[in-house]
């Protein structure tokens, strides 16, 4: 029997039961659409995070207080030191670093006139803009100079600026943070979420001022920009050695962008796989649906099966004919599911344009393969029942 004839024969049989065919196709379509969509979203989430970290620059080292992984052995004397401005100064002198920036953080209300907004206040230095690759919407970033010189300049995130000033030009205006007065020197270009903060919703002030205003002696982070990417490992070890020397303990964590990306990436890969696993359950349900439809079909078409055998159809041809029906159901469902999934993803991207949701090629290929597999896997048993029918009994009208 020719392959095309087989397909045509199977398709003809399916057309004979439109509703039943449509229902089982829908079942597979939903399963495949779920697999594709969830894979795309999971993969998109991973890509999004990777992109975010990549935007930090490949040469970034981040230092924060506390040791994330235990390396055995208590910190010297059991004391954990905070990060200080002096630590920052010492680190900034390392020759392998191009730049560095301290970060102090507090939350307070920024006011202009009678309008106020609670925002994270980041205390840092001029180099922060370069390390984090910030772009200015208008004005300038914090002035360069001695980090101990606490001026009263303030840079506003875009959202903060537009909420407080409502179209007024903020440059040169005075805003208050608590009782303190700051002069607006610049507004950031839109940037969105980056690392811990949404940079559209923060304000930035000189680090010394921030520490004084909020009565802090410690830093939240120190960001370091290494000159040469090849020297990342070296620079990291130097930084760790210097901090160990200064604190007489291993009480800070130094991470690289690579490490961040790979750990987040593997977490999100696991998430994607979990989503696919969940979606596969619906595929399994669809497969059982196909099996059910095919079993009903075999029972209903006993006379047809008997006839085919009487006409000289071989057992394997009968098997192939019924298997082809199951596979066709699943395949049409798979293609429909891909289309539905593509639509769902497109709709999602329409709502969240910055989210890079697109089904990876492997997911598309795997979905089609999966739907074929479902067709074969759940179609074999009914098809075997068809071939095992005794033609005499099948033809008899009893």
């Amino acid at each position, binding site marked *: 029997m020719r392959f095309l004839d087989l397909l045509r024969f199977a398709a*003809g049989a399916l057309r004979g039961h439109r509703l039943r065919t449509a229902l089982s196709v829908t079942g597979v379509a939903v399963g495949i659409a779920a697999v594709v969509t969830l894979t795309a979203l999971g993969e998109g989430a991973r890509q999004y995070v990777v992109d975010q970290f990549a935007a930090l620059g490949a040469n970034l080292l981040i230092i924060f207080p506390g040791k994330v992984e235990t390396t055995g052995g208590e910190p010297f004397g059991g004391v954990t030191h905070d990060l200080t401005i002096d630590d920052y100064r010492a680190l900034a002198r390392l020759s392998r670093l191009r730049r560095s920036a301290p970060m102090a953080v507090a939350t307070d209300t920024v006011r202009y006139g009678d309008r106020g907004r609670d925002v994270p206040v980041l205390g840092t230095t001029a180099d922060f803009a370069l390390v984090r690759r910030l772009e200015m919407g208008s004005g300038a970033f914090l002035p360069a100079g001695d980090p101990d010189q606490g001026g009263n300049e303030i840079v506003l995130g875009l959202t903060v600026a537009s909420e407080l000033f409502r179209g007024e030009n903020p440059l040169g205006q005075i805003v208050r943070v608590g009782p303190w007065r700051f002069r607006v020197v610049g507004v950031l270009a839109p940037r969105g979420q980056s690392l811990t903060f949404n940079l559209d919703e923060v304000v930035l002030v000189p680090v010394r001022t921030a520490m004084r205003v909020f009565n802090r002696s410690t830093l939240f982070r120190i960001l370091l920009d290494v000159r040469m990417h090849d020297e990342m490992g070296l620079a990291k070890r130097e930084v760790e050695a210097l901090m160990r020397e200064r604190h007489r303990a291993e009480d800070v964590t130094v991470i690289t962008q690579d490490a961040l990306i790979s750990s987040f990436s593997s977490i999100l890969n696991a998430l994607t796989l979990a989503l696919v696993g969940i979606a596969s359950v619906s595929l399994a349900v669809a497969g059982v649906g196909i099996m059910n439809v095919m079993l009903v079909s075999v029972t209903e078409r006993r*006379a047809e099966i008997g006839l*085919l*055998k*009487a006409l*000289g159809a071989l*057992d394997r*041809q009968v098997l192939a004919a019924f298997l082809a029906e199951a596979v066709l159901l699943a395949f049409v469902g798979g293609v429909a599911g891909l289309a539905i999934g593509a639509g769902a993803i497109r709709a999602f991207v329409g709502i969240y344009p910055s989210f890079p949701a697109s089904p990876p090629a492997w997911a598309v290929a795997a979905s089609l393969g999966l739907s074929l597999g479902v067709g074969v896997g759940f179609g074999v048993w009914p098809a075997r029942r068809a071939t095992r029918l005794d033609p005499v009994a099948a*033809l008899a009208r009893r």
Partner: protein
Amino acid sequence: MIRLEGVWRTYRVGDGEVHALRDVTLEITHGEHVALIGPSGSGKSTMLHIVGCLDRPTLGRYLFEKREVGALSEEERSLLRRHRIGFVFQFFHLLPRLSALGNVELPMLFAGTPADERRQRAAHALEAVGLAQRATHRPDQLSGGERQRVAIARAVVMDPAVVLADEPTGNLDRHSALEVMELLEAMNRRGLTLVVVTHDPAIAERARRVIRMADGEIVGHDGGSWVVDRGSGGPALQHASDPRTTNHEPRGGG
């Protein structure tokens, strides 16, 4: 070409056994027209299924064109049915989703005949049964007689050696029944071996040879042509001067 030697067909039913065929011995030669007649449940269909290689004897030998069917594999028997045997059923057994042409093409579909040739031969077969005009009609658009003629076209389209018809007129009015029988007989005259199961004496009478069955046994022969093949050295055949009073004889007794 068809030879049954001491064939039994026994069904297990619950604890007991039903003998659908009891020690049937029979030979049908090429080109014969044979009617199988007998009351319902006498084993006619069972016999036809064994002759058609759809079923196998529980006991005894069945030779089709000198090949022992019981020794053939499932696949070999399928191929015999495909190429050498045509079936016609009481309930037509046309696929309702296919046109008349599609139904006639069906055996060729599974034989892997190319589409062009398939269409051509099916059209030709439909023409031979007088239904060229009905080729695109579906079975539900055809009368009973027309349906049976489509089934006959399907049975002969592979150019078989024998057509086995199980009560082909059982569902037809007298007029259509005559048409169908005339069609089959015309094919028989051109050399096709024809075995027709019926319980209608009028239909049976048309055959040159009538085999009467009762309770799984051959109880009588009418017509002359059953005296066959004496020289082949095969086992003895059912044989009696007065068929109506003859019960079966033990095989090997002649």
